[in-house]
């Protein structure tokens, strides 16, 4: 039969192709917190250009990844949006203790698509809007920081009926981006590349630092590409990208 022979040939070609790629480099699966999406893509491209290794990225909520890793999810590295979950994974024996470091410190921003809406904390106090978008505070650290900010401003009780929750910070962003919520708390990194509108950098005094930790998982302990990626993430090229996207850096984590 002709079609089946064609199929075998195609499969054979694909296998050869895979084999040649594998001869030079390996790949690693990285679970990436949603807020780090764009930065991670750029870092992975640079990583591949430099080392030939491939970092296969999955994006989602840190809480979701934590649950999946506990159930032996297919990742070798976790780039979390917080430091709690990587710490817990180390305590539970699922991650390599000495691998944990802070790759970025996140910044919270109040953002609106409208250029005249956000003027500062008085925008929240004036309360002249119907929906405020945040990420789910129990699963996403930026959501928790948003709630912390509202509580510090003593506005949480007033705001509560207006809060809509995205499952990740990406979804919180999307609710504002589609105009369904007038404003929302998003990550500064999401506004890189000039998304327009108006924004207020939330002062660090109003919420605890969003320390985003990376950790090598036990399943990736022997993986060459995974180790290379962890090293690359600490290096100057990756750190330049991270800073460009509006994160602060932990001076202790650089190489």
């Amino acid at each position: 039969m002709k079609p089946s022979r064609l199929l075998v040939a195609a499969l054979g070609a694909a296998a050869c192709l895979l084999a040649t790629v594998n001869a030079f480099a390996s790949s690693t699966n990285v679970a990436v917190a949603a807020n780090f999406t764009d930065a991670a893509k750029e870092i992975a491209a640079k990583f591949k250009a430099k080392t030939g290794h491939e970092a296969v990225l999955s994006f989602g909520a840190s809480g979701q990844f934590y649950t999946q890793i506990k159930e032996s999810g297919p990742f070798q590295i976790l780039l979390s949006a917080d430091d709690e979950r990587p710490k817990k994974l180390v305590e539970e024996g699922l991650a390599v203790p000495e691998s944990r470091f802070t790759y970025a410190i996140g910044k919270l921003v109040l953002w609106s698509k409208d250029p005249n809406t956000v003027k500062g904390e008085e925008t929240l106090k004036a309360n002249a809007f119907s929906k405020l978008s945040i990420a789910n505070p129990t699963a996403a650290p930026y959501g928790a920081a948003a709630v912390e900010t509202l509580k510090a401003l003593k506005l949480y009780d007033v705001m509560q009926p207006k809060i809509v929750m995205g499952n990740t910070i990406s979804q919180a962003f999307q609710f504002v981006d589609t105009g369904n919520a007038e404003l929302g708390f998003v990550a500064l990194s999401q506004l890189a590349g000039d998304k327009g509108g108006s924004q207020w950098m939330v002062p660090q005094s109003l919420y605890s630092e969003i320390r985003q930790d990376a950790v090598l998982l036990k399943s990736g302990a022997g993986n060459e590409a995974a180790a290379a990626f962890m090293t690359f993430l600490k290096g100057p090229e990756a750190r330049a990208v991270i800073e460009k996207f509006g994160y602060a850096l932990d001076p202790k984590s650089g190489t």
Partner: protein
Amino acid sequence: MSLNVSGEIWQPVRLTLELASLTTIILLVLGTPLAWWLARSKSWWKEGVAALVAVPLVLPPTVLGFYLLIALGPNGPGGMLATLWGGRTLAFTFPGLVIGSVLFSMPFVVQPIRNAFEAMGDRPMEVAATLRASPWRAFWSVAVPLASPGFLTGAILGFAHTVGEFGVVLMIGGSVPGKTKVLSVAIYDYVETSQWTEASVLALGMIVFSFCVILTMTLIEKRVARLAS
């Protein structure tokens, strides 16, 4: 604490039942004339309409969720509708979820009713007409009773599918407690935040519910087949 948890756990259950009931009622009202037309019309483009109604069966919920998020928003028809009562978007609202549910559950209601109308054939309506029954009267006293198993199947499937929907609701709901945080989203939240006891209570409930739905459907079908023979 435990009281607190159980109170929180029942809110999504009640909300889901309200959503599914309202959706089913709306679908029976809208779906019946549509199914009738699909079953009886000789129009050449009716299969196009039927395919359109059935499209949510094969679409990933993300497609519907994505377009609904835009359509319900301030720049879409949903936003215009919302301004009638001073809102600016239908996303994150209960009416918004009802609109979404009606769209994605429609094939589950329309198809069984259409099939029932088709199985009935032309004969009963012709007989009713010769007995000088008006078309309206014939529809209610002949067609609807004959097609009642189809209505029952459609209502059960529409209700069950609305209870089970997740993707669309996640994308347009905003997880507002008491308004848009339905069962499936609540379970997802509990799993994601490692509250596995709460997740299990709701998830087990869903399994039992689904089992009962399928069992009921099978029993209805059997009974209908027996009555027919």
